[in-house]
């Protein structure tokens, strides 16, 4: 009898879990569909330069985004469309950056995954792998110096990027300063075409944590529920003052390095292993199993998002492209310094 009542009335935690999972799923779905659209635009020759997708990594990425507050700091990487959306980026801005709109966050100066709004705590990556971590450290350090408490800074990295000196210096720096950094490693088995066996020798990337004196968390990156739980715990730990947190997620990149890459080097055994599961499918099964959504819901959401994306693309394509004659060709902000003398030095 008591049992029946409990079953009928879900606990607060269950409600919270449902809401978070649904929210995260929505960002995953939006990211997947957005990525698909970029891939289509790429194939149609409508995008300048490369297109880099997060297919197979949406669960992890969305978990990061939904675990953060808007007042936190987030420096996503190439496969983080889901996390970006969850952190507050609009579909429109993502499209603008890929199409090089003058109204986009980077005004056509930088493109594709290189986008962000630093003053909103959303840091735009430079390409050099590992370089963003210490920048996040700096923001966290500054906030502490300014007396702002409770901020967390999260940034994402691939298995391959752990081989960079920048990764090492920055994670160590965060540990020495005991900063609330959450460093998420997406171990997706390859760095471009290079398998992890040519990248590191430790059994698990989480083995690196002890050497830095930071907490480690491991998670199945194909499992949204697990990602939410683990990333949530890591973010919570950082927020509670427990110092840097290293999260290692195992998964498989379900696309090429970029859309120019057919990724025929990926071992079929991996594709057929649990790592090769599509996290979006896994999440949908969870929603259905928990009765948080049914097939009709899923179809409707898909449809709605498609509409939103198509509309955004149509709108952005009417936006102005950057105009070289309007452009201020000036890389420093102190205009008085260049006004003074430097007309151009032969440029």
């Amino acid at each position, binding site marked *: 009898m008591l049992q029946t009542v409990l079953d009928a009335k879900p606990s607060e935690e269950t409600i919270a879990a449902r809401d978070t999972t649904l929210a995260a799923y929505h960002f995953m779905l939006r990211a997947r569909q957005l990525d698909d659209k970029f891939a289509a635009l790429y194939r149609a020759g409508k995008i*300048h330069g490369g297109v880099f997708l997060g297919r197979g990594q949406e669960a992890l990425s969305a978990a990061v985004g939904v675990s953060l507050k808007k007042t936190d700091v987030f420096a996503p990487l190439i496969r983080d469309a889901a996390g970006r959306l969850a952190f507050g980026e609009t579909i429109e801005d993502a499209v603008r950056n890929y199409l090089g709109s003058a109204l986009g966050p980077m005004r056509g100066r*930088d493109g594709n995954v*290189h986008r962000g709004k630093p003053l909103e705590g959303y840091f735009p990556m430079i390409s050099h792998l590992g370089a963003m971590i210490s920048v996040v450290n700096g923001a966290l350090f500054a906030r502490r110096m300014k007396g702002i408490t409770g901020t967390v800074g999260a940034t994402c990295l691939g298995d391959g990027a752990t081989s960079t000196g920048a990764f090492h210096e920055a994670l160590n720096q965060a540990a020495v300063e005991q900063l609330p950094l959450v460093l998420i490693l997406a171990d997706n088995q390859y760095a471009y075409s290079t398998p992890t066996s040519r*990248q590191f020798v430790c059994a698990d990337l989480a083995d690196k944590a002890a050497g830095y004196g930071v907490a480690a968390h491991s998670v199945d990156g194909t499992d949204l529920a697990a990602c939410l739980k683990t990333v949530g715990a890591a973010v919570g730990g950082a927020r509670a003052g427990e110092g840097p947190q290293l999260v290692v997620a195992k998964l498989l990149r379900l696309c090429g390095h970029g859309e120019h890459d057919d990724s025929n080097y990926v071992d079929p055994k991996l594709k057929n292993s649990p790592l090769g599961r599509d996290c979006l499918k896994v999440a949908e099964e969870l929603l259905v199993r928990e009765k948080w959504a049914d097939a009709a819901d899923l179809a409707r959401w898909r449809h709605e998002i498609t509409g939103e994306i198509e509309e955004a693309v149509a709108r952005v394509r009417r936006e102005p492209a950057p105009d070289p004659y309007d452009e201020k060709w000036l890389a420093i902000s102190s205009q008085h310094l260049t006004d003074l003398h430097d007309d151009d030095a*032969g440029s």
Partner: protein
Amino acid sequence: MSITYLEAIREAQARALRDDPRVFIYGQDVGAFGGAFKATKNLAKEFPGRVLDSPISEDAMVGMAVGAAIEGLRPIIEMQFADFSIVGFNQIVNQAATLFWRTNVPCPITLRLPFGGTEGGGPFHSQSIESIYAHYPGLVVLTPATVEDAYSMLLEAVAIDDPVIFCEHKFLYYHLKAEKLPSEALPIGKARIAREGRDLTVVAYSAMVHEALEAAAELAGEGWEIEIVDLRSVKPLDTDTVMASVARTGRLLCVGEAWPWGGVTAEIIARVASEGFGLLDVPPQRLNAKDTPVPYHPNLWMAHRPTARAIAVAARKILRR
């Protein structure tokens, strides 16, 4: 049959591997995958154990090349993009470049840097940083502009006993084709007259040679004969050939795709002004990229770098003085 600039680079590496057992290639994804641009396609299969994938560790990649060179090997290091070579900058300029001078032991390594702008490349996949390397003593910096030079200069780079920064232009990779590979070539250190003319000397290198040629063709229609010097190597610089050309034309325009402050165009003008002042009938001029990062959007990118049109405009100004 025709062969691209990129294929020529592959062929040169195949031949270097074939002819010299001391040669090996090390770089990200250069193995089974054949490299981000496919410049090492099939080489790992053809030369087992001699074409190796490296971790994403540019500093250690270069350091390891130096150690292997000390032991008598002749490593070729592929940087995935020139822009990422900056992560290995310390090992290049402070380790590799100083070894011979400090110890008398040569350091025969070749660093292949896919460089220069392409549409949509953006700030971190487009840089032209040859001048950064040329400023440091101890490095040879090459900038081939043709399929033939890509081939022969890469072979010569591997044979040279010094660290060579081999700047291969990504824009030329697929755009540029030749009938066949060359059987002989100018030695490194000699510039080439890419087009003869008597009215103006345009000094250029790498992709800019082709923009200059296009400008020259346009100006020919207006009756001007432009001489184009393709530097081929920016360090050492063949001042003699430049000077001889300026002696003929009395006018000089230097064109580079790099940023305007310092660099190749400044170096050329400084040399001609100080050593060949009397040869100049009018002030020497230069044309560089703008002093900002390289923009992503093609509209901006095409305004950022010198183009045939911009060269023609600059040339006309000089010609009309």
